[in-house]
């Protein structure tokens, strides 16, 4: 008899503890949901500006203003963003375009934003929205030395060992992160290839 009671107690206790802790975590999630959403939106704006080759202000408000003044989101029929048109200094002429593209990295999806100039030939920059690559190896794609090397490069790009990039269509891969580097190359080349078709006659 006591054995059965003990078992029932174990189940009930486990259930109660699980209920209390899951509720607490859900509450924390609900309370911060909006802030996280705003953070992600701000992060996307910073990434688009960086990929367009513009200096991203440190201040959040200035970033917002700069984005509002210079970037025009071109939406698909379903409301999602197809690409971004970036205006020049005065706000009229097109300075370049920014595209979002996904690719398979080593551990998960890599989402990159890539900027091209107004002729869709040279890159103005690259930034990563999402990557779960190995810290210290593949994750170094998010570091400045890696992203900065793409500025002014002309596609299609080829990958060379770290430190050997010389030509204007070569870039330094990361030693020890070949799969990640290849994924970045494919994303960039894919965008360069598809860009004229995406922007099309609107140019």
């Amino acid at each position, binding site marked *: 008899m006591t054995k059965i009671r003990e078992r029932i107690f174990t189940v009930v206790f486990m259930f109660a503890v699980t209920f209390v802790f899951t509720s607490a975590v859900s509450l924390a999630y609900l309370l911060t949901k909006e802030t996280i959403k705003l953070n992600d939106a701000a*992060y996307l704006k910073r990434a688009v500006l960086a990929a367009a080759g513009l200096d991203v202000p440190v201040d959040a408000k200035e970033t917002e203003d700069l984005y509002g003044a210079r970037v025009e989101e071109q939406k698909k029929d379903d409301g999602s963003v197809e690409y971004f048109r970036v205006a020049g200094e005065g706000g009229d002429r097109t300075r370049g375009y920014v595209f979002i593209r996904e690719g398979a990295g080593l551990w998960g999806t890599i989402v990159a934003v890539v900027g091209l100039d107004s002729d869709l030939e040279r890159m103005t920059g690259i930034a990563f929205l999402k990557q779960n690559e190995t810290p210290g190896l593949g994750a170094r794609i998010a570091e400045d030395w890696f992203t900065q090397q793409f500025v002014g490069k002309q596609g299609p790009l080829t990958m060379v060992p770290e430190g050997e990039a010389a030509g204007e269509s070569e870039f330094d891969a990361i030693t020890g992160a070949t799969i990640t580097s290849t994924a970045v190359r494919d994303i960039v080349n894919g965008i360069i290839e598809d860009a004229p078709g995406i922007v099309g006659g609107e140019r």
Partner: protein
Amino acid sequence: MARGRVKRLFIDDLGANNPVFAQVLGICSTLAVTNVVKNTVVMCAGLVFVVTLSNFTVSSLRKWIPSRTRMMIEVLIIASYVIAFDIVIRAYLPDISRQLGPYVGLIITNCIIMGRAEAFALSNPPTVSLMDGIASGLGYSYVLLSIAFVRELLGSGTIWGARVLGDWWVNWSIMVMAPGAFFTLAILIWIVKGWLLKREQGRSE
């Protein structure tokens, strides 16, 4: 009695019985997050927060936790605190959260936390367990911070992102990568163990 005990706890966890260099626990995060001081501080804050609260909670519930399901309950408690911490830094420190990536979630599997819950909190009252949590957390933190200090200084020439070594300094890239952590940790353990062993010998003679 309690005060003497708490004091001994701290001395133990910070010194001879330190979780990292005596028990060699929690090495995964030691290697991964210590390449810059800033990330390490957030990681350590997370660990101190989780180990302290999970120790306290497990200890408060210890009279009711059925021994058969105690591990499940410990993991549940630890995971809840870790996720709560992850959510909070994602909302308020988004950049650091992005850099730490999956490592915050991995605090759940940090053996120090589970180890303290099993070995200490289940058999001691809540306040002492709370103190033990803080002590092990700090013991872990100062070791990680000293490793991070060395790695960031030699690997990037900076501390907390600010340049401290001049232009003449050539960065040791290896210090930023995983092997740098192995070297630094090994040298640290070597120094500390050497010193502890010498002291023990001196005592026995």
